């Protein structure tokens, strides 16, 4: 088995930002170590010769599925919005997206 890859706190912080999770330094250090351990176990497959092998994304051969284009009732809007953390004018409310110009 190949050596465990080394992951720093900065590496973990980069991944956490991609994943949109606000982690503490203590969590970043812990996950950096644990990710390295799991990736170390995965090194056995990284070393396999897979020349000419097609990747499998899905266990079944997928084909396009169509159905008749008939109107169907949708989910009830009020019922859906009732589950949202913040609503305004029948829409999901979020914090400001566009910043003020600097």
């Amino acid at each position, binding site marked *: 088995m190949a050596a465990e890859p080394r992951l720093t706190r900065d590496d973990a912080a980069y991944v956490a930002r*991609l994943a*949109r*999770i606000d982690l503490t330094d203590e969590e970043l250090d812990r996950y950096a170590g644990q990710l390295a351990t799991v990736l170390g176990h995965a090194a056995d497959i990284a070393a396999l010769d897979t020349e000419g092998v097609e990747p499998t994304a899905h266990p079944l051969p997928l084909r396009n599925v169509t159905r008749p284009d008939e109107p169907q009732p949708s989910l009830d809007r009020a019922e859906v919005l009732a589950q949202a953390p913040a609503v305004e004018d029948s829409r999901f409310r*979020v914090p*400001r997206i566009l910043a003020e110009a600097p």
Partner: protein
Amino acid sequence: MTGAPPPGGSALDLARSVRDGSTSAAEVVERHLSAIDAVDGELHAFVTVLHDGARAEAAAVDRAVAAGEDPGPLAGVPVAVKDNLCTRGVPTTCSSRILEGWCPPYDATVVERLRAAGAVVIGKTNLDEFAMGSSTENSAFGPTRNPHDPSRVPGGSSGGSAAAVAAGLAPLALGSDTGGSIRQPAALCGVVGMKPTYGAVSRYGLVAFASSLDQVGPLTTTVADSALLFDVIGGQDRRDSTCLERPSPRCTAALSEGVQGLRVGVLTELVEGADDAVAAAVRQAADALVAGGAGLEECSIPELRHGLSAYYLLAPAEASSNLARYDGVRYGLRVEADTVEEMNARTRAAGFGPEVKRRIMLGTYALSAGYYDAYYGQAQKVRTLILNAFDRAYQRFDVLLGATSPTTAFALGARVDDPWAMYMSDVCTVPSNLAGHPAMSLPFGTDGAGLPVGVQVLAPALGEPVMFRAAAVLEDAAPARTLPRVRAT
């Protein structure tokens, strides 16, 4: 020696007595609600118990019986539903803080089909958060305990469903199986757990973990109940495009066909790492199939040794994408902040538990620029190697036999600090998910401490009928089951 009758009675027997009027659905439901109220404080198999809903559904079944209508094949049978299956107007938490209190605006297809068959949804069961785990210790609402020994885990992630069935709190349960989450807890709790062929059962309303691996399936006390429940929930669904067009083969009819002439392979890679008691049970099960007229040979599929590594790249990668939807906007928890990105990141930090964060981090890393080919791409190619190797094996064999879990139930806390040790719990079950094949675990004896041992029957895609034929013979040959220490009385 033949299998002892299960503690809570089989679903088939219950449905028969409700259908012929010798008992009422209301009585059946009251008996199970009382059992839950009596012992679930100790087990914590349920996240939500639906006292009122279950009574109302039972009353509807009794009205149908009284009116001379057909109440369905599961008339009045209480079913425990894993809490990652959507139930309209009833909290569906995935045992996560991020979905605490969320009430879906629709039912999962499998829940609709249960009700159409006359079943009564009695409660929602505990799981490892978002089905990520092998012990049900990753639940945000506290662990479930094993009815055979409450100091031990029930397995996971469908640990609540397995414990509920084992303790007689529900004759039937639904679970989901992404890497063994139905079969491994079934083995550890001494019940029957079955993962169908990928696409045989609709995933509409199953909260997604790893979409190319997830499948809904039954946990039951008997093999016949497993076939019945699978027949009820399976089949095409216009709301799941991956759901197979052909109707699921009817499995109840296959149960009595025996194993005369079947070619059975004992799968080396699914026995070699197992504890002695588990390996001995597999050998004893193999002997039972031979006694039933099957042919037996050893079968080695060395590619399976790479299954766990491939799984723990592919499943987290898919999870990191699927769980991006928990962003604090449309449902569930929100932690307020000045910008959307900060609101997302704080919400997810507060809402997800440690294992879910770990898997999202792992999957995000495996999919990130510079690592995609080495990890995710390579794991997808290993998946091809495993599929091809299974295909070659199934030219020689009708079914394969192995352990479900390398060990029996372990102590609470024993593996929580060592993720890889926990992931090893899944080593015998992940290959069937990677291949999309059906597989089931059934109880076959106990270890030295009296804990249940599960043996696993594997079959090729859509091979459920032949799998059930083997399972029925094994059930008849299995040593008498021990009664759980904590159970309905």
